[in-house]
């Protein structure tokens, strides 16, 4: 190969390793880091995955049952304390897509138009803020639940979730619930998640690379979105079929590794705090 740097630039394509002008630029196409583990030794990292699942389940259900501002505040405070206790770096927060702000703004406008008590008088104009209040409240419920789920993902290796679920659901075996099959299916889903995310990334990139240069109408954009979603679904189904065939060829439902993580003081403390938070949500609703 002709060594580079000699007689350039003469080629069609050139790559250069350094350009300080573009140093600050950073694009990483659709990387999703919410379900990625960040290694650490914090109390949250040492906690049993089952404890985190139970706490998250209890708090989320309580928040959905009593979605008051007080409940939102309690859950938000718990998530914030847990985030600080986990000693997670600031750069961990996901960069939200630009269109999400637009969607939320459009939702807020529609909610405002819907009116509802209480009313505010702006001169001769009466504006009902009830709808906007409800929209904001339920958006915050979503933020709380998503933040707590992200916290679980950042502090728990994906491989720890299935054994923890196996232990948690173990008593259901006495009721003839097919726990092993259920946990096996969940374990496979968790294992396949990164694969599906990578395929979705390729689907998006392929479409972006082949997209016609001319501007597209809203209808074409809509059609394109539908095609991407159904393309991802078709690939997921194909992948599931391949995995099922592989499982059959290897003799049936895969076994999940037995849980060996100890249940220690930090787990008890986390469950007590969660129970207290749920009680507070119920009382203050």
């Amino acid at each position: 190969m002709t060594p580079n740097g000699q007689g350039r630039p003469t080629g069609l394509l050139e790559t250069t390793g350094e350009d300080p002008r573009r140093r600050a630029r950073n694009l990483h196409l659709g990387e999703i880091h919410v379900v990625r583990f960040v290694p650490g030794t914090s109390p949250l990292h040492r906690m049993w995955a089952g404890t985190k699942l139970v706490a998250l389940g209890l708090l989320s259900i309580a928040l959905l049952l009593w979605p008051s501002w007080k409940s939102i505040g309690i859950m938000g405070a718990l998530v914030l304390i847990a985030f600080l206790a986990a000693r997670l770096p600031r750069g961990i927060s996901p960069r939200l897509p630009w269109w999400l702000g637009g969607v939320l703004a459009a939702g807020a406008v529609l909610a405002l138009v819907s009116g509802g008590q209480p009313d505010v008088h702006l001169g001769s104009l009466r504006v009902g803020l009830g709808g906007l209040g409800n929209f904001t409240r339920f958006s915050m419920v979503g933020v709380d639940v998503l933040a707590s789920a992200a916290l679980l993902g950042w502090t728990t290796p994906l491989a720890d979730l299935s054994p923890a679920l196996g232990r948690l659901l173990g008593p259901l075996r006495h009721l003839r619930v097919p726990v092993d099959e259920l946990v096996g299916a969940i374990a496979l889903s968790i294992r396949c998640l990164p694969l599906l995310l990578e395929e979705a990334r390729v689907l998006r990139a392929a479409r972006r690379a082949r997209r016609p240069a001319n501007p597209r109408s809203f209808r074409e954009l809509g059609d394109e979105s539908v095609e991407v979603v159904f393309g991802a679904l078709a690939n997921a189904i194909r992948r599931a079929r391949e995995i099922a065939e592989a499982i059959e060829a290897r003799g049936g439902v895969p076994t999940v590794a037995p849980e060996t993580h100890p249940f220690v003081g930090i787990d008890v403390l986390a469950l007590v705090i969660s129970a207290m938070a749920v009680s507070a949500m119920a009382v203050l609703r």
Partner: protein
Amino acid sequence: MYANRTPWARRALEGIDLDLRRGEGLVVTGDNGSGKSTLAWSLAGLLVPTEGEVLLDGQPVVAGTGAVGISFQHARLQLIRPTVLSDVAYGADKDRATAALRSVGLDPVTMGPRRVDELSGGEQRRVALAGLLVRDPVLLVLDEPYAGLDDEARAGLAAVLARLRDEREMATVVVSHDLDNADLLGDRLVTLEAGRVAGEPSAWSGT
């Protein structure tokens, strides 16, 4: 940098300094995780490097202009429409799609109405290639084009690429860890190791 300014940040590629002329073929090889696919995505403008530049005819490469076509490891993922002809014609007219199918050695009359899911791996790869050719790219980037192909399909694909380089003066970059028939895929070989070009780049005939 991959995932820059996050806890998962790592340098995917470093000091890559390459140039390629019209009609030239470059083969990039390396172990898993050496940065081959990241390089392919960067060359196609799908990833913008945090440091450095990828220039096409002196201008930063931009995805979606049609000047660079990229074929991914799983060809099925880039087949967007249900039938062969409708897929190749995505973003172009039917006549160009027909010509593109012919240029990759597929008969538009028999292949055009076929469903993309019914095709073999080699046929899917060729249809994906035709879908790129309709936009007259000056550079084709192929990420692991041999994946899942038998010997016959590999030889056929290599011959198609060699013909495209000769007839259309199209430059090709083939990223592959599989070097079977790779001398047909390009004139030069670059080996990546941990995101860097390993050793001195060498002429294909000298390796």
